[in-house]
């Protein structure tokens, strides 16, 4: 066994130690991007200097929402659309924890949209990894807030007509401290971006644009074709004009990736602790 192979094997074992392998096979379709994103999260945890037991994963409902159940971490699989407020409560009450929300576009931006925008506004000190597969995969492929216009889904059989979130543009405009977009084909970049998230005080967000077999099936894109499609269309541009990075089904439109935003607005939790120290230091509240 070569030295390189040995290193790789050890790495794989370490990653496996972070997974609840006794729960495999997992529920994800072959060719789905969620598993790769989860591996990148595990890899980033191993590379972080935060002890493993301080890493917490919170998920909602949906395919991506099952992530919490496959990580050997303290993991919370909560109600549909609500992992963000759960994570906010946990992080606020326990500043020592590194809390990551791992969920999907339907969960976080559609049913959970209001929690999302207010968590960014407050700049809550949580990490959010959002798998964008353009659809509700688990319930058979209905349209979500990130379904591209024109796309066919279970509930848009004639093509989607509502309008689509340009996610990085929106999250940047709301004031997040870190905004990135990657795909499962860019696992090294994604891992590094997650590592970066762990270091950020405040709301840190990565959109993982992910191939979805269910979405592909309904739009006549075979699984392998979809990966080629991704490969062909992806362009890395960290300084991209975010107003122009909205996703569409047009094969000639690029999928723009990158670490777009890095800011250091203090988080709600940091500001609250400062406030608390000031109040308590001032002798307030001795009842």
């Amino acid at each position: 066994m070569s030295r390189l192979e040995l290193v790789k094997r050890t790495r794989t074992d370490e990653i496996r130690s972070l997974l609840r392998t006794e729960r495999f096979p997992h529920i994800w379709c072959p060719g789905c991007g969620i598993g790769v994103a989860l591996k990148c999260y595990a890899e980033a945890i191993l590379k972080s200097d935060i002890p493993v037991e301080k890493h917490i994963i919170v998920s909602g409902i949906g395919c991506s929402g099952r992530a919490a159940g496959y990580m050997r971490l303290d993991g919370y699989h909560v109600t549909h659309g609500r992992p963000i407020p759960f994570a906010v409560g946990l992080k606020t009450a326990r500043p020592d924890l590194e809390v990551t929300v791992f969920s999907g576009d339907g969960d976080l931006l559609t049913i959970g949209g209001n929690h999302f925008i207010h968590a960014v506004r407050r700049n809550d000190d949580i990490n959010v990894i959002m798998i964008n597969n353009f659809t509700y995969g688990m319930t058979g492929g209905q349209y979500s807030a990130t379904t591209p216009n024109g796309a066919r889904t279970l509930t848009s059989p004639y093509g989607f007509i509502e309008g689509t979130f340009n996610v990085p543009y929106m999250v940047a405009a709301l004031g997040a401290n870190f905004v990135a977009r990657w795909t499962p084909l860019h696992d090294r970049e994604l891992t590094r971006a997650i590592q970066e998230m762990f270091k950020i005080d405040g709301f840190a967000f990565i959109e993982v644009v992910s191939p979805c077999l269910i979405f592909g099936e309904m739009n006549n894109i075979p699984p392998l074709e979809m990966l080629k499609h991704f490969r062909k269309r992806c362009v890395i541009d960290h300084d991209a004009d975010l107003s122009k990075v909205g996703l569409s089904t047009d094969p000639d439109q690029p999928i723009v990736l990158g670490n777009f935003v890095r800011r250091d607005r203090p988080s709600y939790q940091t500001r609250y602790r400062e406030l608390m120290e000031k109040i308590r230091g001032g002798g307030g509240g001795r009842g």
Partner: protein
Amino acid sequence: MSQGLLKPGVYFMRGNHACVEGALIAGCRFFAGYPITPSNEVSALMSRRLPQVGGYFIQMEDEIGSIMAVLGAANGGVKAMTATSGPGFSLMMESIGLAAMTETPAVIVDVQRGGPSTGLPTLVGQGDLMQAKWGSHGDYEVVAYLPNSPQEMFDLTIKAFNTAWAYRIPVIVLADQVVGQMIEKVVVPPHEEIEIVERKRPEVPPDMFKPFDSKYLVPPMAVAGEGYRIHVTGLTHDDRGYPTTSHEVSQKLVSRLVRKVRENEKLIGEWEEHQTDDAELVVVAFGITSRSAMRAVREAKREGLKVGLFRPKTAWPFPHWALRKHVERGADILVVEINMGQMVRVVKEHFANLVKIHSMTWAPGTVPPPETILAKIKEVYPR
């Protein structure tokens, strides 16, 4: 430890404020809420007091966010609560089910107002009684306390925390607009005399620990970051916390969730009685209505009627075993409540066809005055 907490002594205090001070003494160090009348005094005082005692306050974007943040904090091992009223309570229902399913202790204060819908935001109601028990889908049990004074807003909020943490369940303080907003004498006893219950902690190392171990009625609770690396899900789960569709596991889990309360109902249930010993008519009333009923039964006695008052201090579990004694003596029952007949259904569930069960319903957004209750007493008094 007690730094910043309300000192023992006598206070002239608003019910909603007494609730806050009780919560802090009970160990509450996290509050999330959303503005709603008539519970606003709770979040306002929490926002001032929590940073003083080293706790965390956050105003969320809605009541769903509030209860979810409370569940997050509780799973971090921090005692947490929220406060709301009817419309907000409705929004919290799905998450109360999550709390029951994941056995997350939490305290929810519902300062009831007139309903349904937006109803009477500033006026009193008691129409959330059934919702408190049945509001979320599926089978589970909660405990709900029924304070009738600022003193009980203090005392029963502390009890609510103790019960929530002892049984790992959501506990509701089902107050009402008058009790929440009235100001009255509140006695804070020496802190060392106040019983405070903490969670039962895991006693085995992580590799042996099962977070939902069904050999216990209430399994020990591991919280985030302790190294137990637990999985907690709202899906039906086995002893390890892993999702399953096993019929056997589901049956066992759901049974245990309800048994936690059902098997301990006599330990949890509380009530108070006045002049019931020889009463031929027992008036059942709770919250602010019990105080009007108290005046009415006193007056009735003065007029020579044998009438007593039975006041449940817990809606759920309903202290039916205590009321049964009077039913067995043959006393009739009159239930007075500010709703269209909710508690009377529970009384009928236990005692239908045994004695006469009368109901006085009320929904104008006021408390039924003593003289109105007295008139009803005279109308239904057995002769």
